């Protein structure tokens, strides 16, 4: 058996092992990712749609509700599902290499990056599949369920098809970024806190720093969200497809730096 075949076999076993580790009634998937990454974006999307639809039907009201376009229809999936996938992957990576788990990882996988790559693949594919299902369901049901406000939302439009293609890609690479960050930080709570702050605070508030608008155009998650066609106020010079490539490159770089740190730690202890 060649070294490459053996390495591929170890990665495949790592993916299966991560599926076993994260599932079950007490697993992070059921207790964390499902409520925060699946139920919450669905709930927020439909509650807002329901409220806007009701307001739009008020007789004699001074309030007017603007029709929502396809490009604004899956915002909460992009916000929550992608972020929760990233954070779940990061938590899984950091928690797997703490305490006795670190020794078991070394025993099962002789190469330091094997289990990290396995986690990227497992959580990345899962997050991509879940986000694809969610954007499909939301875009397919908003128009018939809430026709006054969401009548323009069209799954088969060019904007809809772009969401179907780009959101899973965004979700997949975001998990690689999460695993990379967690490999560097090495602490579950620290990794989660860092990513939460970065995604929901740092990138959004970057415009407050001097020349912030220009700096904000380099923020990876904003690039990723913008690349899907979602309307947000950044305009990177590389266009939407370029923004997706940029996010993929940043995520891959973060993952590679993380595996480098893992290799150094193995050599030292």
């Amino acid at each position, binding site marked *: *058996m060649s070294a490459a*075949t*053996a390495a591929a*076999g*170890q990665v495949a*076993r*790592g993916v*299966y*092992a991560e*599926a*076993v*580790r994260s599932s*079950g009634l*007490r*697993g992070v998937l059921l207790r964390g990712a499902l409520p925060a990454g699946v139920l919450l974006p669905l709930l927020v999307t439909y509650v807002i749609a329901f409220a806007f639809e009701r307001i739009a039907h008020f007789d004699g009201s001074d309030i007017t509700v603007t029709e929502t376009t396809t490009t604004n229809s899956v915002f909460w999936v992009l916000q929550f599902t992608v972020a929760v996938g990233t954070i779940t992957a990061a938590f899984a990576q950091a928690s797997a290499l703490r*305490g*006795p*788990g670190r*020794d*078991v990882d*070394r*025993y*099962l*996988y*002789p190469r330091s990056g094997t289990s990290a790559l396995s986690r990227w693949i497992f959580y990345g594919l899962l997050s991509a599949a879940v986000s694809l299902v969610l954007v499909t369901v939301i875009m397919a049901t908003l128009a018939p369920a809430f026709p006054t406000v969401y009548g323009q939302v069209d799954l088969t439009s060019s904007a809809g098809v772009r969401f179907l293609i780009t959101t899973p890609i965004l979700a997949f690479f975001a998990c690689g970024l999460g695993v990379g960050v967690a490999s560097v930080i090495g602490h579950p709570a620290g990794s989660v806190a860092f990513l939460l702050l970065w995604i929901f605070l740092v990138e959004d508030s970057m415009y407050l720093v001097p020349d912030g608008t220009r700096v904000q155009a380099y923020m990876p998650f904003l690039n990723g969200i913008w690349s899907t066609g979602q309307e947000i106020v950044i305009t990177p010079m590389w266009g939407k497809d370029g923004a997706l490539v940029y996010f993929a490159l940043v995520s891959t770089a973060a993952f590679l730096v993380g595996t480098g740190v893992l290799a150094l730690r*193995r*050599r*030292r*202890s």
Partner: protein
Amino acid sequence: MIEIDDLRVDLGRRTILREVNLTVAPGEIVYLLGRNGAGKSTLLRSVCGMAPLRSGEIRIDGAPLRTAPSPARRIGMHLGIDPVHPGHTGRRQLRWLAAGAGVPRSRVDEAIALTAIGGYAGKPVGGYSLGMRQRLGIAGALLPDARNLVFDEPLNGLDAEGIIWFRGLLETLAADGRSVLLASHLLSEVQRSADRVVVIDDATVVADRRTADVVDRYGDLETGYLALAGARDGAA
């Protein structure tokens, strides 16, 4: 077979092990003895590929462990009782290990049966007693059905029945032709089970003797160990 040649392990600037040479032949039970902090656990971790080697080589069945497609199938290990995931049930922990090692899932039930943990395998590991954790750890070591096995203090926390059961398990493993390397401070049990004892002191092997020879010369293993380790002051 476990072969250790001229091993040196440094952690940071400290030398934990140096010039360690040791072989555990098929069918042999070898116990490591030594003070707390002597380097026994580090040696066992090194054998399982967990600690970086400064120099020397460790071969498991003739080849370094890192070259094996699945290292866990070449050597089974139980090196600690701290649960990796306290929320996991014992069965899920074994399923997770089996998945990572590339061991068939059916082997999980066999390991549970071998260690008699079926009564609590469905409960979270975080609630296990010390003895239950030891049995779960031993089940994890038996899971890959490997020709080589390593145990660190497997008797701690086991009740009398458990100690007798483990003694029988070691006899079965040796009769099967497996190489077994352990560390323990329970010298009465070591005297009953060990084919050889290896004393580690000051980061290196200071004695490697057949247990029967030590007992013949010193009367019992405890006296022999203290003499071999040069620890007559009772510090051990």
